[in-house]
């Protein structure tokens, strides 16, 4: 049941040093200065993709437990933060943290239930899919609970207060771009740390062969639950930011399969179980979606249709992802020059 990630994919990126990541950061940080509104909008989508991909990757790539239902955490983060803000006046900055913690706690409960039951591979992916779909169905049906408006299928309108940094409300998109960029830096730092830590080594052992890892004394169950918690935490946090950007959330969107699959897609295309794979995946996929939108205006579904095709092509021909492909090519070239 070895997942997609190719062994050795990590070493190559480390080999190319910190130059590329720093370059990416500099370009990303400077981009809005030169960009117009449209490019900024695309930039926000790209950062969101990359962030979701890296968050998903902690569980799906590093620990090898593919989830088809990360939208559950995204939606929970969005709703918790929004409800706290609307009903208790809690600033979304704090709401984001609480939303992330709630998502992580929920993730732990789901992880304990599913992993205790021994769900692996297909079954875990399907169970996660059902969890997200069930939350969506639940929130669609919840109009009001104990006097608190949940909104049902119509969703929730978040209050617009005019630019107010303390409430994470901005007239311009620019601040959100930098918020997402900062969050991406955090999640990348965490993933980088995991990749060189003992915990990361355990996760890879779990991914490659659970039974062997268990036999070697790795606490497989604990590792998987921890990976889920971290993965869910970060996914939940960005859900709250989503609510602040659009000031409107509805169950049909925040719990939708779209948010589950985008993370998975970026990770698989870029290279599951690698530090930079999801970012690379987002860099490839976002322009693809935008190009399709520009050339075929107003055809809804076309971008997802293309994503479906990309997923098929990658899993079929480049299952190790772009990072894996890059390292393999490097290794081959080095091997060739030596002989």
């Amino acid at each position, binding site marked *: 049941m070895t997942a997609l990630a190719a062994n050795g994919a990590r070493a190559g990126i480390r080999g190319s040093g910190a130059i590329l990541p720093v370059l990416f950061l500099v370009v990303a940080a400077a981009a809005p200065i030169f960009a117009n509104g449209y490019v900024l909008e695309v930039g926000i989508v790209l950062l969101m993709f990359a962030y979701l991909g890296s968050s998903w990757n902690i569980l799906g790539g590093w620990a090898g437990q593919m989830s088809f239902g990360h939208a559950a955490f995204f939606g929970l983060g969005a709703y918790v933060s929004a409800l706290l803000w609307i009903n208790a006046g809690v600033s979304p900055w704090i709401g984001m943290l609480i939303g992330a913690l709630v998502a992580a706690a929920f993730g732990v409960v789901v992880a304990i239930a599913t992993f205790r039951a021994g769900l692996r591979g297909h079954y875990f992916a399907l169970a996660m*899919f059902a969890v997200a779909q069930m939350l969506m169905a639940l929130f669609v049906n919840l109009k009001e609970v104990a006097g608190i408006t949940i909104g049902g299928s119509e969703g929730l309108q978040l209050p617009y207060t005019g630019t107010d940094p303390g409430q994470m409300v901005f007239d311009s998109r620019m601040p959100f771009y930098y918020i997402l960029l900062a969050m991406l830096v955090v999640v990348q730092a965490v993933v980088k740390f995991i990749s060189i830590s003992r915990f990361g080594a355990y996760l890879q052992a779990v991914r490659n062969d659970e039974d062997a890892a268990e036999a070697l004394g790795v606490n497989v169950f604990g590792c998987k639950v921890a990976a889920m918690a971290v993965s869910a935490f970060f996914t939940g946090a960005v859900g709250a930011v989503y609510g602040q950007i659009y000031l409107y959330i509805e169950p049909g969107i925040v719990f939708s399969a779209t948010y589950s699959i985008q993370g998975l897609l970026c990770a698989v295309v870029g290279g599951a179980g690698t530090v930079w794979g999801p970012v690379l995946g987002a860099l490839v996929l976002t322009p693809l979606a935008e190009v399709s939108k520009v050339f075929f205006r107003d055809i*809804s*579904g076309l971008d997802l249709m293309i994503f479906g095709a990309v997923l098929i092509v990658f899993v079929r021909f480049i*299952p190790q992802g772009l990072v894996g492909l890059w390292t393999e090519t490097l290794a081959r070239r080095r091997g060739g020059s030596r002989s």
Partner: protein
Amino acid sequence: MTSLIFEALVAGVLLGGVYGLIALGLNIIYGVLDIINFAHGAMMMMGMYLTFWLFQVYGIDPYLSILIAGPVMFVFGALVYLFLLDPMRGKALQNQFLVTLGLSLFITNAAQVLFSPDFRVLQPSYGQDVIQIGPAFVPLTRILTFVAALAATAVLLFIFQRTRLGRSIRAVAQQQEGAALCGINVRLAYTLAFALGSACVGIAGAAVTPFFYVSPTVGDLFNIASFVVVVLGGLGSMAGSLLGGLVLGITVSVGAALLPGSFKEVLMFAIFLGVLLFRPTGLLGSKA
């Protein structure tokens, strides 16, 4: 109240027949290939659109379309297997699962691009007819669909249990190498298994169109239903699929009668998770 529940019970049994057929298709594919076909629901949606347009454009009766949708999806399934899944045989099963996820994404959104996200309803002239069974009034279309699903299931079971073709597929499912040594074409057997599983949803799709709306995402509903039924009835057990179909059909329809709003969807997912979690792991683990 009792008549309401009786009515729901009858509706549940009738719906269960369809669930059974869909799940049978998923089960054949899983039982033989070890692949959970995530695109199962999306392929059913294809069958539904085909039936809808055949009726709309050529006036072909939806029940007659079963004879078209079944073979069309059979061929589609064969092509999917040959071009997408067969080249990956022997590789990590998760990758094949991901391919079916990509396929589902592709088909669903292609339908959205081609036909818009609108809900469409097919209205045959007999669409409103009802038949009285005891205290319950049951739409004629539900009964016809149930009969059609049962007939298709019977034909499939016959193919699997009594024909040479079915025996060879089952042989490959049990022991791939042994079957190959006996001169069975393994690739052909796998292709036929996937094609037959796909034909099931083609038939089921055509059969439900007289009373079920058609939309690009309609397959999601049946996708989950078929996973539930397969896990409920037992993987690889064809009789289990039918029984599981009936159980789910009755639960959902009685639940819908008793619960407010659209909580029946929550119920469906809850059953699914419950079955996944509390079923002995032995039944869940793949053969590999």
